[in-house]
């Protein structure tokens, strides 16, 4: 039995303990607050046959695909957005390299409501999206029913209950009360839909500071199994109030992803070639990380009351 008052543990141990080959995994955030460090660790530990359940995930999903960790994605969008194409996702689907990945598709609202259903412990939720589209044609788990009240057709999406969720937040206490600044994505529901939640955070703060601004708490500690303090966890993706997206670094991953050999060499250098995430950060360079932090504080401000109570 874990200590319920102090759930802190290391990233390596958390990934080793909570992720078994073949289980289903989800991430919080969406581009912002995607736990990239968790993807690196899953690849480093060579986890296999995972089912990745998400709404939209960018680079953190591409790395899992390139690392051969996934057998299936349940999603609305896997790509790398404004930076370019999801080259690793394309290679997996079109050429089965490194392995074919099944795709069970929804829309972002569809995925959102799957997590809400999971969080409410009900089997499905009805929505008015997806109707008339081929998303329904190719996903038998979406049911269209002219509903019981006779008010017209609805699309029913099944609840999502991932085995483990990794959710990155700005700050949390050691029990796992987690505060998010900026957009929440679906994290208030993902933390309740998942069977187990591993929180990663930029910093651990005293519970007394959590109590000063309870409205910022998105995740209460009773949802959480483990707390992993991981500053810069999302690099090269951003965290509101903490650091910018490192677009040049994302471009380098994208450039490496143009060929299978390229991304394998990139993973050898940046994932297998470093001992852990701290070594990765050393390799990225403390000066560069500090600059991303500095740029964020230059044009995005968390109010003083939040920082100092």
């Amino acid at each position, binding site marked *: 039995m874990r200590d319920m008052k102090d759930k802190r543990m290391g990233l390596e141990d958390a990934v080793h303990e909570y992720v078994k080959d073949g289980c289903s995994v989800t991430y919080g955030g969406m581009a912002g607050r995607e736990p990239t460090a968790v993807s690196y660790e899953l690849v480093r530990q060579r986890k296999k046959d995972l089912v990745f359940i998400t709404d939209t995930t960018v680079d953190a999903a591409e790395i899992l695909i390139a690392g051969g960790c996934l057998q299936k994605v349940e999603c609305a*969008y896997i790509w790398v957005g*404004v930076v370019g194409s999801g080259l690793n996702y394309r290679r997996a689907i079109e050429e089965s390299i490194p392995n074919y990945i099944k795709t069970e598709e929804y829309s972002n609202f569809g995925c959102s409501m799957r997590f809400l259903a999971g969080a409410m412990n009900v089997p499905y939720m009805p929505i008015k999206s997806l109707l008339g589209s081929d998303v329904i044609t190719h996903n038998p788990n979406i049911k269209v029913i002219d509903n019981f009240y006779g008010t017209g057709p609805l699309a029913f999406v099944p609840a999502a209950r991932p085995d483990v969720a990794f959710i990155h937040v700005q700050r949390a206490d050691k029990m796992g009360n987690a505060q998010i*600044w900026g957009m929440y994505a*679906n994290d208030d529901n993902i933390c309740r839909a998942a069977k187990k939640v591993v929180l990663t955070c930029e910093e651990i703060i005293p519970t007394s500071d959590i109590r000063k601004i309870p409205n910022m708490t998105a995740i209460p500690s009773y949802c959480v199994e483990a707390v992993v303090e991981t500053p810069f966890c999302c690099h090269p993706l*951003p965290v*509101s109030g903490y650091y910018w997206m490192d677009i040049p670094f994302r471009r380098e991953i994208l450039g490496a992803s143009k060929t299978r050999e390229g991304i394998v060499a990139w993973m050898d250098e940046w994932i297998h070639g470093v001992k852990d995430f701290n070594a990765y950060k050393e390799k990225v360079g403390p000066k560069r990380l500090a600059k991303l932090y500095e*740029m964020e504080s230059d044009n995005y401000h968390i109010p003083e009351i939040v920082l100092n109570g």
Partner: protein
Amino acid sequence: MTFSTDYNTNELMAVIVSKQIKNDDVVFIGVGIPLLAGILAVTTHAPNAILIYEGGGIGARTRRLPWTISDNPTTDNALAAQTMWRVFSDQQRGFITLGIIGGAEIDRHGNLNTTVILGGDHTYTHPKIRLPGSGGANDIASSAGRTIIMMRMQKKKFVRKLHYITSPGHLNGPGARKKAGLVGGGPQAAITDKCIFGFDSQTKEMVLTALYPGYTVDDIRESVGWDLKVAKNLEEVPPPTEEQVHILRAYDPMGFVLSSKTVVGQNGFDVFCDRVQKGYRALQEGSEI
């Protein structure tokens, strides 16, 4: 007001999309040119319009361009920071008056494909080209009050029949959306890099309504995979103003969106930080005058 003589097509498209945003609109905004168009609208002719981002940001007055629909500035200087399921529920409820979306393929009724390209023996599970999927586009196409489509014109994109309907336009014509159970109004216009299309109120089919400077009806006809309908009073789109171009470039000083430029390496990193910072500082100083 002075018209710009030095602008590119992306800048013109951003200006045209921004004009579609009215002062009382609540807009679901996507990444890239639509995002710049939204920012241009709220800093010029539509100061009361509320921009909504899928990550949960509502009404941000960003001090720099967000690089994704959930990037940090999407809640900078904002009215509210909420959840994804909540902003999509707000859309289904009817609060979002306008959505802006794009696609890899479009048909004459404004249905969009962003999922798979087939052909030959290819199937949905083994496509010729795999694309990102819906993201929030299906939801916006389904439930926003009206939608504006943004697409580059190529014959392989403007097709008779889609390989896959990701986001519903007017489906197969009049009445089809209502029958399917969709609550939103569907596409109102399609804005391309050569022209603007409207949708006929009777047939729900695309109609060429305006040309950009330098293009003819034949140019457009060549790029469309069906029998093109042309409006009786075809208009020519005016160029952007100098002010509009200035604002767009200040928000995208690296040309990530406007010129599809790229940066890599440590040197690229330093240039990236420096240029973006100069851009937003210039804007802040400009607004104080």
